[in-house]
Structure formats: C-alpha cells, structure tokens
C-alpha cells in the first residue's frame, strides 16, 4: 500500500511551451488554456475523464438512484436465497430486479450497496486528497520559499512522518479512538469511522505533496521573475500566491489526480483488514472482504465490486497521466 502516489511522477515542467501555436489576433492563450486544448485532443484523457465523470455523477446521485431502483442498502431478501444462503438463479442471483445479484448469507442487493460504496470511497479519497494537498502546499511553499530554519523544521517533520509505520498506527489508532469516544457497547457511527480514516490519510499523506511543492518552489525561487517581484517590493503573500503558486499548479494537479486512486485502494485495503469501516457502511473493501468467503461457491459476488474498483482506479490513473502529458508537453512519453 503506497501512500506516496507522486513519488514516481516525473515532475511536470514549470512552463508549458507554446507549441500548440498561438491564435492570430490579440488575445493570448494562457498556458492553462493551451493545456486544456491538449487535454481535449488526447483520446485517453477524454475516455478516462468521461468514466470519472460517470462515477462521480453516480456517487452524487445516490439518493436519486436509490429512489428509482426502489431498494435500500440494508434491505435483505432472504426469500431469494436457498437453504445454504446462496442466491437463487444464475450469476449470484442476477435478475431484472437485482441487477448485480444478491449477497450470499444476508441477501442484500449488491448493486445498491456498490453505489453507496462508491460514494463512500470517493468521498474519503477526495477529502483525504484535498486535505493532504492543502497541508502539503502550505508547508511546501513556506519551507521552500523561506528556507533556513523553517525549511529545516518542515523537513524534519516530514522525515519523522515518513518514518512512522502507517499500517501499525492505523491498526492501533482506529479501534482505540472508537473505544475512547464510544466505549464497548455503543455502535460507532459511520461518519466517525469515515472521519478517522480521512484523518489518518491526511496525517500520513501530506509528505509527498509537501516535498514536491518544496522542490518546485526552490527551483522557482531563484528565477528572475520572482526576484523582479521582490525588487518591486512584493510581500510574502504576493510572492507565494501570485508569483509561485500559479507556476506549480500543474504538478500539484497531477499529484492530486494520482493521489485519489491511491486513497481509494488504501481505504479498501484498510476496510479489508478490518481497520476502516464496519459492515454497516457499504464500501468496496468490506464487500470484497466478505466476498472472499464465497469465492468458490458464488464467484459473481467478488466480480462486480472487484471490476468496479479496478475500473475506477484505472480511469483515475490514466487521467492523471494524460493530465501530466497535457500540462507538460515537453516530457517524453
């Protein structure tokens, strides 16, 4: 499980050249507009982007889908299971009513649980990615621009964070926190579990963004346009947000788009080993974990969540790569 999704990313170059050819006339096209034009010409980007859009729309429209589908995520259909708890019919009980079949044992509808699980996974991944990016950007720019002891302290904290064993702390922390706040008997609400997961990801995930941003800022800091702003008397805020940040959006965006799928798989993995979410909250990790018991008797159960999570992560990674190519046309493929 990697929490450093951008470690292998070749850093996107700072400026994108004008190879796309500027239009005639007196309105210039910004580097961002040029990148957007390149992205739209890239077939991989369009296809994977459309897939992502589809997943996001599904996740956002969960209540509508549930209404139209007419089945809730916790409804059980025991009457459609045989005596061993196996769903009746073919392919895990796929029917016009239950599109992806039923869970063996409890008899819940797989389709609506997957739609809910998609929402949970995407929410956790996006929330974690946004928070880590924010922490990373702030610490990275400040450390890179100011240098000196600030840089040393931030670097030291980064190294410390990287040295902490993620899995062990996640394993130890999650039940302890639940116990501390809710005790032995009380049921832990899903929101709390999700919050703990996001917090753990945020705690461990910001280091790669911080390092990436710090490196970029250090490379930019000595550039003459930054010195020109300093010579004009610009303050720290102007330097960081007007001069530096617009030039490092490209690598930050790429790292963000590659961080989201990493968090999706991490969430699934944590739920799988029983640290993250409980069975009450639908999630990909829990579904796959449960489905392993039925791998031989009901292979359809593992098929649908498995394929969906694969498609989701694959689309994100493809899109992230396409985004990098669009933002940085000079990098070799």
């Amino acid at each position, binding site marked *: 499980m990697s929490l450093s999704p951008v470690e292998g990313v070749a850093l996107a170059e700072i400026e994108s050249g004008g190879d796309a050819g500027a239009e005639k006339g007196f309105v210039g096209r910004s580097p961002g507009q040029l990148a957007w034009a390149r992205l739209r010409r890239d077939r991989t980007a369009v296809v994977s982007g459309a897939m992502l859009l589809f997943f996001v729309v599904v996740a956002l429209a969960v209540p509508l889908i549930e209404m139209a589908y007419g089945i809730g995520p916790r409804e059980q259909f025991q009457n459609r299971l045989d005596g061993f708890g196996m769903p009746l019919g073919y392919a895990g009980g796929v029917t016009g009513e239950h599109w992806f079949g039923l869970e063996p044992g409890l008899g819940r509808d797989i389709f609506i649980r997957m739609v809910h699980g998609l929402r949970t996974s995407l929410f956790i991944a996006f929330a974690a990615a946004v928070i880590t990016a924010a922490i990373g950007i702030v610490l990275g720019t400040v450390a890179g621009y100011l240098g000196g002891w600030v840089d040393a302290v931030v670097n030291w904290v980064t190294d410390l964070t990287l040295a902490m064993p993620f899995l062990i702390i996640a394993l130890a922390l999650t039940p302890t926190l639940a116990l501390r706040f809710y005790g032995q008997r009380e049921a832990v609400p899903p929101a709390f579990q999700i919050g703990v997961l996001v917090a753990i990801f945020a705690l461990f995930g910001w280091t790669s963004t911080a390092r990436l941003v710090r490196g970029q800022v250090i490379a930019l800091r000595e550039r003459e346009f930054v010195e*020109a702003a300093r010579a004009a008397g610009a303050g720290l805020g102007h330097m960081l947000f007007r001069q530096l940040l617009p030039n490092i959006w490209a690598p930050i965006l790429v790292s963000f788009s590659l961080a989201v799928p990493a968090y999706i798989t991490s969430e699934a993995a944590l739920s799988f080993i029983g640290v993250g979410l409980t069975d009450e909250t639908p999630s990909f990790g829990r579904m796959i974990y449960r489905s392993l018991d039925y791998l031989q008797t009901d292979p359809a159960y593992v098929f649908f969540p498995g394929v969906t999570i694969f498609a989701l992560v694959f689309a994100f990674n493809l899109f992230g790569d396409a985004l990098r190519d669009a933002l940085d046309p000079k990098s070799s493929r």
Partner: protein
Amino acid sequence: MTETRADEPLLRVRGLAKHFPVRTGFRSRGLVRAVDGLDFDVRPGESLGLVGESGCGKTTTGRMLVRLLEPTAGTIEFAGRDITHAGRRALRPLRQDLQIIFQDPYASLNPRHTVGRIVAMPLQVNGIDPPGGVKQRVQELLELVGLNPEHYNRYPHEFSGGQRQRVGIARALALRPKLIVADEPVSALDVSIQAQVVNLLRDLQRDLGLAFVFIAHDLAVVRHFCHRVAVMYLGRIVELGDRADIYERPQHPYTRALLSAIPDVTTLGPGGRIRLTGDVPTPLDPPSGCRFRTRCWKARDVCATEEPALVPRDGGRQATACHFPESGPVTAPAPAQRAVAADGDETVDPAATAGPDAQEVAR
C-alpha cells in the same frame, strides 16, 4: 574617489562587500569574497558601466544595489538615505525609485501571467492607482518600450527574446524610477536585437532622465551607452573614469588588457593584443596586495605587499588602483609581456572573440 561636482550623487556606495561562506558539511571552508570593497557614485541621469570578466562580482553588486542580496559590509546610500540594511517596509518608498532589469528575458517574466499583469505588478504590490487606471498606464508603458499596447492580454511565451526584454524594461519603468540597475540586459539577445534594446534604453534615459548602473561584459555596448565606466577585477574596482578616458587612455594594466582583447580589424596588428597568462585567482583566497599582480606583467614586490588604492591621477577624474599606472592610448604596442607560454596561453577576453553575444549567456 572624491566627489568634485556640486550636484549630489543619487547613489553613493562605500566599501560595499559581499562574502559568501563556503561550507562542506559542518566545516567552514572560508569565504568567497565575491565583492570586496567597492566605492562609487552615480549622479542623477548618469549611466555608470560596470565591466569585467565573468565572476568578478558585477552581478552580485547589482543585486546588492537593489537589495536582492544583503551586503556583508559597506554602505549604500540612495538619495541621501542609507538603505544598506533597510527592511522591506522601510524600502518601500525607495523601491519606486530603484528598479532592476534582468539578464535572461526567458526567466524574468512569469510564464503564467499576461504581459499586462506583469507590467502592472509593481503598481499592484505598491498599491498605486495611476490616474486613468492601471490598464491605461500599462498600455502607455508598452508603447513607450516599443510594443503594441494591444498585446496587453498576451502571455510571455508568445513573444520573442527582444520583445520579452522590452516587457521587462516596461515593468522596471512602471514605478517611474530614478535609477535602474541593468544586469547584462542585452547579453542574452541576438546581436541585431541588442542594438535595438540598447538604443531603446538610451532613448529612455534621455527622455526620462534615468540614471543607470549598466552591468555588462561587452565593452562595445558599454562604450555606446555609458558616461562613466568602472572596471572590476576579482571583486574590486581597478579603474573608474569617464568613458573617453577609460577607452582612450586606460591606466590600469588590466583595463589595457581588456581593451586590447576587443577584436578590431583596423587596429589589431601582430602583438597588438595583450595576452594574460593563467586564470583569475580564486576569490576564496585572493592574492595579497594588488589582486591583479599574479597576471600582471608589471608586478613588483610592492604589489604583493601593498594594496593599491583607487586614487585619481594627475588631478583628473580617472581613478586607477595601480602602483605603476600606464599612460597613453591603448593602441600602442603592448609592453614587454610577462610570459608568452608556449602551451596555448589563456587570453582574457570578456569583450569578445566570437561575437559579443556568444559567451556566457547563462550566468
């Protein structure tokens, strides 16, 4: 150098020095004396050329003048106020009078900002709202530097090197400065563009009454542009004087060597060029006494023990830091050369051997 004129100098620099510590691990390996005690003045509307070969401290000096680098020692007075260690807030009113033009037009403009935003940046960060609005002022500036004001919304990557440098000049002019430090403003440009940009700067100087500190290694450009010239060697000024004096009656041996390295088909005969042997000594451990003595053909014992002061000769305004100054025009045959090494002697040629723009485009 003592100031003889009645008018106050705009910029007065005394004993300016910048030392960079060199460390390997925890051990200090000493100091690089990049700039080691400069004295000079710049009067309003005057342009002072700073020339010398790479690594002699020209750029470091320019950056200290606009306070991008913190001086180690010495004082910088601008318009009668000591700005040597002034903070950002204290500098703010003076920033408007003191601007810089950079060498590399490809690095000096933010690629994510439109030209309009780049030129407006100094106005914006200083909270200035000119009459008629920022946009109108920016378009005036663009026109002033010979760009189409309609290019306001374009991005730097859509311009050529010369046009980008014009944008940089417009940005420096935005605050209506009194002094501009031009750090090799044309070195990165094509020869044909160099002339255009230098002429633009000269027109601006004449029309706006700007003072310039013009840093260059191209002696021909400096001769074209500057009223006075300071020749630097290894962090010190070795000779300072009016353009005509420096170019026609150089007194310091180093200046003579520099000038003799300008390729000139009309005067360069055999032996007309002074060839210096050896490399520039490291600024980590500069020679004692006169810094040029290790390569000087006139060096005597006194040069190693006593550092020559930058003093005017013959009551004139040309100051030379040399124990044995020369006299006469530079075109005379070179004096007895100290050594003509057989193994391909090094020549010192900040000026040009292969064209003025061919060398050290990168800093």
